[in-house]
């Protein structure tokens, strides 16, 4: 035990000296950023800090709803966040967002007009597009002989034990609704019940409900197909060129992650400076290249390797987008979704 005591003392001394290190901050303006993990090229943060003298404190979260919990709290300290479409709708409704002064974001003109003025934020009063993509099936053609053009293949017994579903209530119930021919934003309890039954019936065929690990499983060939975001598909295909991605004919979800400034922010001018920086064509190109997700920045896409624009996974053609729907805020109806999801998971 004596040794343990010594170790404890040593470790403590080390950590305490480290903490002194941590507390020695400068007097620079600090921007508190809340984003998805690994969703920005860290070199760009350095570049922004060097160019403007503003320091960026970057923290991460794992779901839109976690961000909502944070932003709904009156003492949140965040200045810039990156929520998705349906959450922006909710944040606007709850009056939690700062109305952006577009005069401070001249680079907004770089954004493809297809991604502006969408239903969740008409006129882009509160949000600026950051990344976008679709939900689809990533599969391994060496293991799947049938054509992959319908969600029904995820219900095909032939592939029992090789199917990976996305472990997310909204996405998985969403694609099931699409498979059944319903609206992805349905408010009908019968539609949800049908989706629930379809998912329970599918459960014995499913290898696992995963999120990020779907990538690992498909890259190393442990599973033959799985539901993924298009940006993740781009990464997986670059790691394992055998893989292919398809957005089923029944339609799917198209999603947008936008940049917002919370109403509570005290550094709105610096936050707008940061947003303008991210909308710069070169910055957007470098960022999209790093993350692998599609950029809505037309000027940025033009600067990227032409293979990106030609890749239907990265840059889906208009007919694919036409059959996809954007998620809407469910309001209280989310409880019907979550009860169905509990039944699926507990089945």
């Amino acid at each position, binding site marked *: *035990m*004596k*040794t*343990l*005591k*010594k*170790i*404890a003392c*040593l*470790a*403590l001394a*080390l*950590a*305490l000296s*480290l*903490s002194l*290190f*941590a507390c020695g901050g400068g007097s620079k303006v600090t921007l*508190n950023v*809340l984003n*998805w*993990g*690994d*969703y920005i090229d*860290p070199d760009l*943060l*350095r570049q922004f800090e060097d160019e403007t003298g503003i320091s960026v*404190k*970057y*923290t*991460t*979260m*794992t779901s839109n709803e*976690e961000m909502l*919990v*944070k932003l709904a*709290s*009156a*003492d*949140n*300290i*965040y200045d810039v966040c990156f929520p998705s479409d349906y959450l922006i709708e909710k944040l606007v409704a709850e009056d939690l967002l700062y109305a952006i002064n577009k005069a401070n974001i001249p680079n907004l003109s770089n954004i493809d007009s297809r991604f502006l003025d969408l239903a969740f934020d008409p006129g882009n009063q509160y949000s600026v597009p950051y990344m976008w993509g679709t939900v689809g099936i990533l599969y391994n053609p060496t293991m799947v002989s049938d054509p992959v053009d319908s969600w029904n293949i995820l219900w095909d017994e032939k592939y029992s034990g090789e199917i990976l579903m996305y472990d997310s209530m909204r996405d998985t119930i969403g694609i099931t609704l699409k498979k059944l021919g319903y609206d992805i934003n349905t408010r009908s309890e019968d539609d949800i019940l049908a989706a629930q039954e379809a998912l329970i019936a599918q459960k014995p065929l499913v290898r696992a409900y995963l*999120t*990020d690990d779907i*990538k*690992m499983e498909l*890259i*190393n060939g442990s599973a033959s197909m799985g539901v993924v975001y298009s940006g*993740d598909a781009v*990464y997986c295909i670059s*790691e*394992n060129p055998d893989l292919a991605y398809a957005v089923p004919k029944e339609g799917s979800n198209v999603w947008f992650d936008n940049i917002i400034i919370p109403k509570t922010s005290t550094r709105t001018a610096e936050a707008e400076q940061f947003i303008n920086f991210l909308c710069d064509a070169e910055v957007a190109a470098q960022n999209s290249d790093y*993350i692998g997700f599609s950029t809505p920045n037309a000027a940025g896409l033009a600067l990227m390797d032409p293979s990106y624009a030609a890749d239907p996974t990265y840059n889906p053609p208009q007919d694919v987008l036409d059959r996809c729907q954007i998620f809407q805020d469910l309001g209280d109806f989310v409880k019907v979704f979550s009860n169905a999801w509990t039944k699926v998971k507990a089945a």
Partner: protein
Amino acid sequence: MVSRLKKFFSGTYLGLMLVFLYAPILILIIYSFNQSKTLGNWTGFTFDWYAQLFRTPEITDALVVTLSVAAISSVVATVLGTLAAIGLHAMKRRDRLLLENISQLPMVNPDLVTGISLMLLFLFVGLRDGYTRLLIAHITFNLPYVIFSVLPKLRQSSDMLYEAALDLGCTPMQAIQKVVIPDIMPGIVSGLIMAFTLSLDDFVISFFAGNGVDNLSMYIYATARRGVNPALSTIIFVPVVTLLLIVNLKSIREERNAELQSKKVGMKR
């Protein structure tokens, strides 16, 4: 013969347990030199992840936060918790049971609920500083582990020691310091270690109770979505193990020297 067999079996058992404990860590260390970000998909040898690690201030910041919060919160929790256990142990049975039950609450409450209720509390009292919030939250969830590792030691030790010390003229404080604490030291140390370990791993409470400060677990949990930098795994482990080995080998050598010394003295006699 029997004892040698026993020794063999006990050695084998401990060995197997160590293999069980270290197998995943070995895997992580190996994959930290892998070109692909995806665990389990070996594409070639590289030091890139380590280089990238030190180029990313978010990671080094998170590392500093993690280690300092773990150190400070485990020490504070150990001091508070040890004193609490000594006090609890001396209380009447009913009071003690009540307080022991309340002390279990942070263990029983799901992390998420603890995190959000602390967040609401901090909002209510107007505490905004993320680092302080993180510290308070960690001390709070560490406390029961310290208390419940010290209490059994107290139950095991005799109250007579304390009373004897008082009879011999110690003040209660002196008696605690000189008699009780040394007697329950192993419990205190193991409480400290557990508190430190828990603090290193927490991410749910930290996310909600903290405010704009990431620790390593939060960072890892969030970046896991797109693939963790595999070098992160070795970054805490290797320095700690090195440190531990140095300290231990040194103390073993010292003890051996002391033993030799005493043997020599014995022989001379």
